[in-house]
């Protein structure tokens, strides 16, 4: 009798010695779930046997709000999704509505958009690097990353007055002209940043503890990534060279030369390397762009009241965390009939269970860090 009970337990839970599974509730208030993610971990000792993500603690109904706002009124709301990369969100939305209106932003506006978006990518990756390192126990990189991010935020502040939720762009172009000395500020940051990024590399890249904690952790194959729909650095670290900036160029990316870093293993270390290289490439794009910002108007021919023709549009951009898509249905009125947002964090979070199974509790936080999720975007 006792034997059968034990066998049943073993089969059901698959734990060592048929012991009970330990269900550990991580979050929504936990130092390293990056917001209000809640993960229920089924543990055998410290080994993870299964996970269950509970999301929605930050749900604000952004998509529903869109149906009751005009096109311009909704633009600030998208900044609140991925608040670490508000500029990128705004770019995606503005371009989607422009596509719907069938207008194109002037070249000068597109170049400045590119510069700001790439700066935002660096800022977003810096936050990822700092918190990821902090999760793995390296305390110091976070403060170095915040120091550099501060410089980027200062540029945003000078440009549009806001630091976090910038609402930097306007449908049809830019709200503001680039301020005097904008190029100089960006150039100073980019020149400085090369030296700064070496500091992180010195602290982490060759560190054997760091390599031990990240290499072969949270492996995911390219096929799995594609099946799930994961995008961004996660997909590229698995070896798929897919970047919308090259594949379907938007803004002014077709004007600049840059490389798309690709990993081989799809493990946490590769994702680290890919993102570090992306920061360097973003820096190069910024340097190329400020060399020659074309003169001209900053706002295209859009009316005061936006009334797109009835129809639907899908537009996606390569946000720092992956592919950010906007699907907008217009019924010909001043308000969208329906807005559907494809947030990269939400889709990438699906890879979590696949990555975590079989690893230890300590790896769970490393994997949450490497996914680079923002719960504002996951829950919307």
């Amino acid at each position, binding site marked *: 009798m006792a034997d059968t009970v034990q066998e049943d337990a073993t089969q059901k839970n698959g734990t060592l010695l048929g012991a009970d599974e*330990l269900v*550990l*509730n991580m979050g929504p208030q*936990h*130092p*390293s779930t990056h917001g209000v993610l809640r993960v229920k971990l089924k543990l055998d000792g*410290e080994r993870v046997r299964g996970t269950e993500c509970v999301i929605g603690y930050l749900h604000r109904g952004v998509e529903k709000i869109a149906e009751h706002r005009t096109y311009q009124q909704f633009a600030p709301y998208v900044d609140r999704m991925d608040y670490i990369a508000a500029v990128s969100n705004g770019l995606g939305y503005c371009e989607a509505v422009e596509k719907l209106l069938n207008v194109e932003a002037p070249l000068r506006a597109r170049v400045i958009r590119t510069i700001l978006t790439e700066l935002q990518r660096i800022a977003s990756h810096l936050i990822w690097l700092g918190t990821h*390192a*902090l*999760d*793995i*126990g*390296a*305390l*110091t990189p*976070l*403060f*170095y990353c915040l*120091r550099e991010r501060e410089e980027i935020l200062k540029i945003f502040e000078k440009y549009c007055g806001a630091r976090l939720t910038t609402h930097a762009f306007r449908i049809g172009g830019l709200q503001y002209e680039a301020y005097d000395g904008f190029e100089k500020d960006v150039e100073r940051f980019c020149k400085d940043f090369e030296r700064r990024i070496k500091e992180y590399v010195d*602290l*982490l890249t060759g*560190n054997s*503890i*760091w390599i*031990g*904690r990240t*290499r*072969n952790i949270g*492996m995911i194959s390219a096929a799995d990534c594609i099946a799930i729909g994961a995008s961004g650095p996660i997909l590229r670290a698995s*070896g798929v*060279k897919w970047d919308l900036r090259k594949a379907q160029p938007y803004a002014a990316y077709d004007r600049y030369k840059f*490389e*798309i*870093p*690709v*990993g*081989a*293993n799809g*493990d946490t*270390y*590769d994702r680290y*390397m*890919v993102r*570090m*290289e992306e920061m360097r490439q973003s820096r190069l794009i910024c340097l190329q762009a400020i060399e020659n910002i074309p003169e001209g108007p900053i706002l295209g021919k859009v009316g005061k009241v936006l009334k797109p023709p009835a129809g639907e549009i899908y537009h996606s951009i390569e946000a720092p965390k992956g592919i950010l898509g906007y699907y907008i249905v217009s019924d010909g009125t001043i308000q969208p009939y329906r807005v559907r947002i494809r947030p990269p964090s939400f889709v990438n979070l699906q890879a979590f269970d696949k990555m975590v199974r079989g690893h*230890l*509790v*300590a*790896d*769970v*936080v490393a994997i949450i860090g490497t996914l680079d999720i923002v719960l504002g975007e996951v829950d919307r």
Partner: protein
Amino acid sequence: MNPTTAAILHFLQTWWVELVCGVVIVAVVPLIAGYIVLMERKLMADMQARLGPMRVGPHGLLQPIADAVKLLIKEDIVPADADALIFWFAPVISMVAALTSMGALAFGPTFQVARDINIGILFVLGVSSLGFLGIILGGWASNSHYSIIGAIRSTAQLVSYETAGGLAVISALLLSGTLRIRAIVEAQQNYNPQQHSGVWFIFLAPVSFFIYLVASIAETNRAPFDLPEAESELVAGYMTEYSGFRWALYFLGEYANMIVVGAVATTLFLGGWLRPFPNVHWLNWLDFLPVLLMALVGVYCIYRAGKQPVPVQTWFMWAVALGCFAVAAIFAAPWIFAPLKFIVPGLNGAFWFLLKVTAYIYVFMWLRFTLPRYRFDQLMHLGWYILIPLAIVNVFAVGVAIVLESEFGWNRWLALIVTTAFTLAVAAILVNLHDKRTAGASTATTATTDSYAG
């Protein structure tokens, strides 16, 4: 006089020194621990390009007192499902163990805290290890998953690293031939070609010192081995459910433990209260270093005083400067007033001892801000596959060196260099084997990362 009074008086007459020492430990160590926390926060801030605590007192100098007051007046929470009695008792064990083990330490030739017991170092190591009982019981009694995982981790960590640390201690004991703390330090000064050396044991047994350093970081639960309280994984490990002053007791125990391991390392390997190279006469000027150092700190405080933004801070900096000058004057007094000469060894001894302990703790902090955290299995691998075998080989090597010297008349340094080279070769082999083992576990998936591939 009635018999009770007589007994109490007799007790006091016999034990008054120890009682006073006990009171001093209980009163002073928490304060020192508080200031070590401040030092840690300031160092961390310095390494992370920020300022650290600046609000309470000039440059946050009164922050520890504010923290202590805050913790004291916090609500005392015992979780509903916790085992209240053990929950109450566990942090006390942790702290008492750390404070008790200080009793046997010697901070200078005349500053033995309690008394020079004949099993000195064994007593210190044994009693300080009892602190883990507090951690395990606290984790268990909290009745929380995070706490129990933290407690299990700390148990495994203790078993692994106490072994390696103990084996590293043995080589210092072999060199000195005694467990008595005062005698161990004296063995690092008195030159005696038969038995003893005239240098710090770190020069004779560098590998042992390194092993003890690593093991002591693990024993005090400091990064990169801070798994029992890994904040990004287990919230706060075994302390998750603790708050207010109970939490402060754990904290106190942890920092007191750092002082203890620092003091043990200083005693065993860094020459205790001896100045660097105590037998080299042209370095005798180092005896004046305490005076010079305190005076320099005082001058620096005056220099900074003019740059303080608030008048109160200027006055406070002056006060600190005057305090430094007063200490410098105390250090200098015996040279000016000859009859006071007898206090020189004691004062200078305490200075050097505390300087070395501080330097040791500084290394702890430096590592904490620099390195990421080990994972639990990696910690165990490091302990069992590298550190413990290395410690065993090292004890044999040191023993062989001593025998070669005493029985076969080898030159001491030659013997030590040969055996140390042997130990290092073994270490290289162990690390190599370890790398192969970890690489072998994942050969199928390992490939080089090429950021520009594809």
